């Protein structure tokens, strides 16, 4: 609101109010119904939204980790292991790839992922884990070096 005369200045409630409301309404532009245009209704929704986004920035990391673990587990089960076994065996073997990378390999580099999974299976057989599952497919040579 442009104040062009002293009378207007006396009558105005303050120049800030409009811009304060605008800051909130800009964030609520994509909401449904009166929540996008009416300030006193929008402020409630916007405050809740900002609180959620602040708190859930931590939850994001947990969510992604669960998602990645699920994806890796799915690919592992196709190849005859499980995520827990594979990750623990990778730790023992010294391969330090993290979950983000493993899930990317599982999706976009299936051959590399398969090689890694079979390698962990061979190492598990050496360690004596999951011995009741049956023999490991041939073709994986570790020569006791892991």
């Amino acid at each position: 609101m442009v104040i062009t005369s002293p009378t207007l200045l006396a009558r105005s409630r303050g120049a800030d109010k409009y811009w304060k409301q605008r800051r909130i309404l800009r964030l609520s532009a994509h909401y449904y119904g009166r929540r996008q245009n009416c300030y006193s209704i929008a402020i409630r929704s916007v405050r809740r939204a900002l609180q959620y986004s602040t708190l859930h920035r931590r939850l994001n990391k947990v969510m992604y980790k669960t998602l990645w673990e699920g994806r890796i587990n799915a690919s592992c089960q196709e190849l005859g292991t499980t995520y827990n076994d594979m990750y623990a065996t990778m730790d023992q073997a010294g391969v330090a790839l993290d979950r983000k990378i493993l899930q990317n390999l599982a999706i976009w580099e299936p051959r590399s992922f398969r090689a890694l999974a079979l390698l962990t299976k061979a190492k598990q057989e050496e360690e004596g884990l999951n011995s009741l599952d049956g023999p490991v497919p041939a073709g994986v040579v570790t020569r006791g070096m892991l």
Partner: protein
Amino acid sequence: MSVAGVLSGCLRPTFSVWRANIGRERLASCVASMTRLPEVTQPPLLLLKHATLSQQPNLLTQIRGLRSGPMGWGGGRAGVRTAAVTQEVVEDSEEAEKQLSKEVIHCVNQQVQTGEYGRLFAVVFLQGKQHLVTTGDLVVNQGFFPPNIGDELRLEKVLMVGSRDFSLYGRPLLRPGLVHVEARVVEKTLSHCRIYFRYQRRKNSRKSKFNRETHTVLRITRVEVMRPVGEVPEVEGIEGKIF
């Protein structure tokens, strides 16, 4: 009735639950058993070595014969049913494995020397995070990163490299100088505005913070395998060092 008497090993019909008076020790609860156990014999010692695929016996059948029940069954004796006697021929596959390794490494080195591996991808460790990169990729780095726009970098911590036909995994890093992953700094900007807003209703409590992180964007210009695999240099640890 003491426990020592129970473990004498003589055959007798089983009886109902008995208690042993061995001071403060607690015994597991015994189950009444009405069957008479067969003759006790020592099972042959089974060698559980690595066997070839075709000759590996079923582990379950081996173990079944070795199990003895809890204290109450059969008087706590080492009461074992006779296990099936199996023999396994363990082939020494060391030579064959060495030969296979040699062949595989030779194939990989051929591809490396002729440069026929095609497009390579690498897993690179940068500022605490791992990135799966190939040539032409953009990598966004968050936080303090000194290099300026236009600087050429070599990303030396490579965890893994792969192509269509082979993958090399480091434990945890590949040998320095094996793979060259080069990048160029393309852009230095700020991230989008992150609003940190804490609010407690009806308590007149509200605080907000507006934060923008510095982002540095790198363009990966090159991923290449420089040395043959399996090569052991005479002196290690002097690459890139100035004496």
